[in-house]
Structure formats: C-alpha cells, structure tokens
C-alpha cells in the first residue's frame, strides 16, 4: 500500500517542532506499524535525512516502551500497543498523522520520543511493598483469596506506557496510579502501607504536573491492557479513608 505520513519532527527538547510530510510506497499489510517506520527510516537514511526517532523495545506488547499518537489516538485504532498494530488496520492511500504522547508531564526529547520518568518517581513515592531481601516469610504462610489475587493480577498487567495520560484531556495519570494502588491494595501483603501509599503517590502525581481526574474514561478506552476505570474509584476510596485517618 502507498501512504502519506505526517510526522512530528522536533530536533530536541527546547526547539519547536512541526509536522513533516513523507510519502511511502509498497508497504505490506503484514508489517507492524513500527516496521513501517523502520522502512521510512531506511529511506531517510539513504537520502541523507535524519531518521525519525521513536521509542520501541520488546515489540511484543509487554515492555511499554512504544507510544505514538496515531491519527489522534494513543497507540492507534486498535486496543493494543503500537508495536502490535499492523498495517492491515489501514488502507492503501491513507494519510496517517503520527505525534508523540501529548502531556505536560511527558516532555518531548526528540521527534516522537518523550520523557516518562515521572512514572518512575510516582512509584518511588510509594508504589511498592517494603520487604527487604531475606525478610520474607514462607510464601504459603499468608493465603491470599483467589478472587482478590486475580484482581490484583489483572490490574498489575499495566505496562506503564502512558497511553492513559496521553489520551486524557486533563493529562491525568490516575489510571496508572489507580492500577498500582489496586494491585498492592488487593493483596494481604500490601495492607500495612495501604493508606500512606495512596497519599504519597497522589502527592507525587500532582507535583509532577499531571492533571486531575474528571471521570471522562478516555484512559481506559486507550489502555492497551484494558485496565478498568474502577481502579480510580479504588484510588479515591483509599484516599478518602486515608484522609479520614488524618494521614
């Protein structure tokens, strides 16, 4: 198939960027979206033009490195990551606009590459269970109810890609944060720090410049791992309990 690509080009974090148009011919529908960009980059390299910088690593939908707003949608038209999106989701002759994640808390570093280290700092603020190596009790000494363990697993599948933030009109990271709070809050091991965790993570979230949640739901619609919206309810419930406890 032949395509017209409008791609955001920005040389570095401080210089203004703009959309540039490229023509691409002979793209196979079996290519992944990122392989299509690989083809473009080979073409650019041959022509002496700087290739388009974009993030990707595992290319099997689990590491969370890839991003991209594709025609205004985080990770494009399917419920999956950009690396698992294939060109058969597009038609011959299509024009595709490719931009980096849009959010103040994810500044652009170059072209389509953004800085998502704010997510690491949210985890540092409390997204863990304190258990030094060697201090753990026998694994089966604390049973965890199966339904709660399954819910914990389901939300722990978050890959930290940032699509939720990019899709949110407020640039909120509530879905990301809610997934972690729910994951750890559903397990018996997560109880001792449950209410300090939520307070500390929310404070860090706000300090990073993420916006507030107004229950729009774009986050869960864009999430490649289909993290449900009710993790944000869990987040708010835990936060309310924490505040009642005066934390």
């Amino acid at each position, binding site marked *: 198939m032949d395509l017209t690509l409008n791609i955001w080009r920005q040389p570095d974090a401080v210089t203004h960027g703009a959309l540039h148009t490229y023509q691409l011919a002979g793209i196979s529908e079996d290519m992944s979206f990122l392989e299509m960009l690989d083809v473009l980059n080979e073409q650019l390299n041959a022509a002496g033009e*700087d290739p388009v910088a974009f993030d990707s690593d595992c290319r099997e939908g689990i590491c969370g490195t890839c991003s991209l707003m594709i025609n205004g949608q985080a990770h494009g038209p399917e419920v999956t990551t950009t690396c698992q999106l294939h060109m058969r989701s597009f038609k011959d002759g299509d024009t595709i606009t490719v931009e980096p994640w849009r959010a103040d808390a994810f500044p652009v570093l170059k072209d389509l590459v953004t800085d998502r280290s704010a997510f*690491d700092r949210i985890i540092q603020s409390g997204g863990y269970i304190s258990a030094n190596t060697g201090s753990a009790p026998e694994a089966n000494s604390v049973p965890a109810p199966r339904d709660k363990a399954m819910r914990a*697993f389901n939300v*722990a599948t978050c890959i930290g890609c940032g699509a939720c933030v990019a899709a949110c009109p407020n640039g909120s990271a509530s879905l990301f944060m809610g997934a972690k709070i729910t994951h750890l809050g559903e397990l018996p091991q997560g109880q001792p720090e449950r209410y300090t965790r939520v307070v500390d993570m929310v404070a860090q979230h706000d300090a990073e410049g993420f916006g507030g949640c107004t229950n729009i739901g774009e986050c869960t619609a864009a999430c490649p791992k289909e993290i449900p919206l009710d993790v944000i309810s869990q987040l708010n419930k835990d936060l309310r309990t924490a505040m009642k406890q005066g934390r």
Partner: protein
Amino acid sequence: MAATDPSHTTPLNSAPTQISDDARGYYTPGEPLVDPVAPTGPIGQRWTQRKFDNRLVNPANRRKLDVIIVGTGLAGGAAAATMGEAGYNVKSFCYQDSPRRAHSIAAQGGINAAKNYKEDGDSTFRLFYDTVKGGDYRSRESNVYRLAEVSADIIDQCVAQGVPFAREYGGLLDNRSFGGVQVSRTFYARGQTGQQLLIGAYQAMERQVAAGTVTEYTRHEMLEVIVVDGKARGIIARDLVTGEIETHLADVVVLATGGYGNVFFLSTNAMGSNVTAAWRAHRKGAYMANPCYTQIHPTCIPVSGDHQSKLTLMSESLRNDGRIWVPKNKEDCDKDPRDIPEEDRDYYLERIYPSFGNLVPRDIASRQAKNVCDEGRGVGPMVGDFRRGVYLDFTDAIARLGEDGIREKYDNLFDMYARITGENPYETPMRIYPAVHYVMGGLWVDYHLQSSIPGLFVTGEANFSDHGANRLGASALMQGLADGYFVLPNTIRDYLADGPFEKITEDHPAVVEARTQVEERVTKFLSINGTRSADSFHKELGHIMWEYCGMERSEDGLRKAIDMIRELKAAFWSDLKVLGTADSLNQSLEKAGRVADFIELGELMCIDALNRRESCGGHFRAESQTEDGEALRHDEEFAYVAAWEWGGEGGDPVLHKEDLIYTAIEMKQRSYK
C-alpha cells in the same frame, strides 16, 4: 540414579582430552582454567559453608563502597534493590527509559522452585538433577545445586513484594508442570510471569532510589569498562539523550546486561538487547564462555517478509494440544491446508519420535522443522528462496475439547497470533517456525560470579552460568533472581571486604584511555560516511549466523561463515553510514555501536562452534550424530567449558578449558525416541 559418594569428593568422570581440532588455525591454545573459588565437600553444604566463609562488610563501611550495576532486568534490578537495602552506594544503569522495561519482562511461562507444594516428589536435589541433565552435562554442578537451593527463597521474596502469582481456591499458590519435567514446580502469573517478577524487583529498586541508596541512570548505555591495576573500577557510559560521555567510578562493577541473541538479527529479544557491555568487558580481559550455546525456541510466529524486525514467541504449551505437520509433497505447500487430505500430510514429529511426538525437547522440535523446510516442504509465504513455516494444527483438539475449550486454554496466544498474522487459528492451522530465544553462553564467571577481571561480576543471562548447553523452561527467571537477590550479595561482600579501594580520579591514565577509546569510536562511526545503514549490516550478519551457526552447524559451513563475517566486518568499517551528531539523541549511532560488537561476537561464536565437534544441548554439529540423526555428545573430548580470551585486534582468540568434573551426578546420553 546411581548411588554416589555422599561426601562428593570422588570424581564420577575423568577429565576430557580433546583429539579433534577443527578450529586449528583460528585460535591459540591457552592455559587450562580452574575456578579459583570452587567449593568442595558434600554438595548440599557447599553454599551454606561458603556464605559463612565469605567475609562480611561492616554496615558502617557499606555506604563508603560504590557499586555499579549495569542492567535492570531480574538479575540487575534484584541486585540493585538488595545491595541498596544492605546499605551500599549503588548506581544503576539501563539503556531503556525506565528500569521496568528490561527484557526480563517478556518472559511468559513461569519460574521454577523446589517448594514441593504438590508433594509430588520434588526436592532441591531433583531440581538440581533435572537442570544438569537438561543442560546436557555442560554446567558446573556446584553452581546448579546452589541455584536449586535458593529457588524456594525467591518465591517467598516475590510473594512478600506483592507479585500476584496464580493461586488456588484456598488462597495458596498454584503450580504447573512445565518444559517436559514430571513434577509441578513452576509458579506463574498467567502468561506474564516475567513481567510480574520484574515489576516486583523494579518496585523494590525504586524504593531504594527513594531511600537514597540507589541512583538510577536511565537512557544510559555502558560503552567501556574501566580497569585500573587489573581491577574493574568503573564504566564509561553515554547519556543517550544528550550524547554526553560520562565517567562513573566505583569499587566494583556488576554486569547484568542480558543475552546476545540479537546477533542473529531476528530473535525474540527486544530491539535494544545487545552484547556491547559484555563484549567491551571481553575486550578488556573478561573471558567469554561457550558463546556457541544458543537456545532456539520451536513455537514462534514465522517471518512474513524482509521487513521483519523481530520474532514473537508463543508459549510452547501450545504443543500439548496442537499437532505439527507439513505436506508430504512439495506441490501441496501453497495449497490451503484444509484442502490437503490426511494421507498427504506428514506429522513428522509423531512419525520420527513415536513416544514423545509433538512434545520432544525444544532443540529437536526446532531442528526437525528446519529439516522439513530445507527439503522444500515448508509452508507460508516465500521468504527468500524458502517457505519457512510448519503447521501447528488444532483441528483434532477443537474436535475433542470444542472451540470454547481451546479458547479457555490459549485465547491470549490465539489472539496474538491473529493480530500478527491476520489469520484466524481457530479456522486454519497456525504456522510456526523456530527462533533464537536465549543464549546459555556468556561471560565466564567463577563460583562467586566474578569474571576473569577482578572486581567485575556478571549475573543473569549475561554470564555463562548454570544452564550448560541447554536451558530448561522456567529456569531463566529463576537464575536471574537467584543471582540478583541471593547469590551476588553474598559473594560480592567477600571482594568488597577489602575495600574501599584506593580512590582514583577521572584523570587517571586508565580512565582517560577508556574514555578516549569511547570518544574515538563514536567519532569514527560518524565519519565513515559510507552508503549502508547499521541495520543493513545487522541483517546480513543475522543471515550468516542463522544459516551457518543456527540450529545445525557443520565444519564447512562454519569456516565459510567465519570468512563471510570477516568480509562483513571490513565492509562495515568502510561503508557504514550514520547520520546526525554525537551530542544528541541519535538512535542510528546507538545501533552502529551494537552492530560493530555483534559482528566480532559472531565470529567468536563460529570459532567456538567449529571447535566443539560434538552435539550437545542447543549446539548440533552435523558431524556428530547417531545413525538416526540424533545429537551425539563426546564427553571424553568436550566435557569442558570453553572460555575464550580476547586475542587482540586482528589476533586469534585464546582458548582456556575448564574441565567439568561431576561428583554428585553421573553423565548420561539422552534419548527421546
């Protein structure tokens, strides 16, 4: 199992004597190698005794000791967290934008541990035995026993961190059987075990970042190790955003930088997975052990065309219900498989291996798939001159269990397949083909995980480790976390007990030299100004490696490959084209450095494969097979670890042999007929 001497002091095999010398002319024989810290005594007490014997570091001294850990996968992330908790001053480096993205995250199946929760006869000794046997008797028994011993602690640690393992209705942990073993010792979190374990290690590490004991450097790539007076004292790293070349000094350096499967260009590894850290260390004096041991996984989604950038693995549990076949006749290969009648199909694994059938080990399933495709009976699209695919057919299983039954077991895999290929595997047979998945080879380490450079430790897939010539399923995660949480912290302290070492500064000649080397290399890449991208060289290297150093290797093929790689290396350094600048985010430049090192590694892999004129584990030499075409080991010649020393630019590598002597297990040939 034969009764063995309980004090484990009597050797059960004699030292090998190599008679064949296929690689003559390509290497220099070196002095024999002995692990200087190998433990002795009853095998079950070796690690306990060693933990006691190893010196301690006073807690007050720990914060004065600087520890660099490169890589944040299971081995590196777990080590950074644990060393941070102990109070050392840790600097952690990764090329990814976050430590959580390291490629351990992609492991699907599970993690083994000798908990014996199923009361099905499992034990530390059985896990040890299975691992040594599965590795085709090419690993060190002391190391493997230790791995089996700490495996149970790993599960305790992960559960305490909140890793959401699968559970039974009573709330206790569930296990499954995995990878052909007869006990259920695999803990799992659906098909995403690696992800959950990595997130556990990552969170523990981030907690230490907040506590101030760990400093993390993301989007940083290690490009050189600094060796001062024979000891590793730091690294040179490039900030991948600003391009700045940075010097980081320390008392000890740990490489947890993963495997080098991407030397084949196409593999199940991440795009960024590379050998550079390990290879730079190798060039500075760290031996590379058994580089030819590569694991090729049989159930991957086939290549669809030349554009392909990576291969995707599907859990081999699919082989429990799918039947593997190709057409008997070449003429049928482009037909719709549903139109090929039963009598024209060749269920070749069931035919050749009537007792194990489709469940033969990974290496056998992979090799036979290649054989039928090489005969021209492969299916799927033509890629180059061949169709590279075989059918994995669920028609019988769907008839037996119903479509819903299959959906319940495999729906995420079927969805993934449909997304990538655009075909519906419920209606038409899946196509699969083997792909490079894991490397058992890596930097040589002693029992303390210390390389041949004092002060340089290597953990996880990056070391040559515990898997011998072949790794069992669900054992990579076990080894990564064993090294990171429990082994390294207990061995590195014996080294650090002599520290803090003499302070060095950035103007030390060895530091300046390392830094200059890195800067000159970067400048060189940008100034060649040829016509070809680094990617195009990488693809070409991958073709050579896959063809001649892949599933089946022969003397002639390997010699040819070595010549081709040498030509490719010359072409690379004269015709490479890297645009952009050194002082910016430049992904082409990153790639160029990685490909340059892959080319040199590829040559060494071929020399190692050429020297090892036997078939063992993932290494199959055409010249060493039984009349039935099965792998044939030659313990009397090759029961040794091949540790290669860098022979200098343009020089031949030097081969040091470490004999493998067993005292607790007797060697046997395997058979799956």
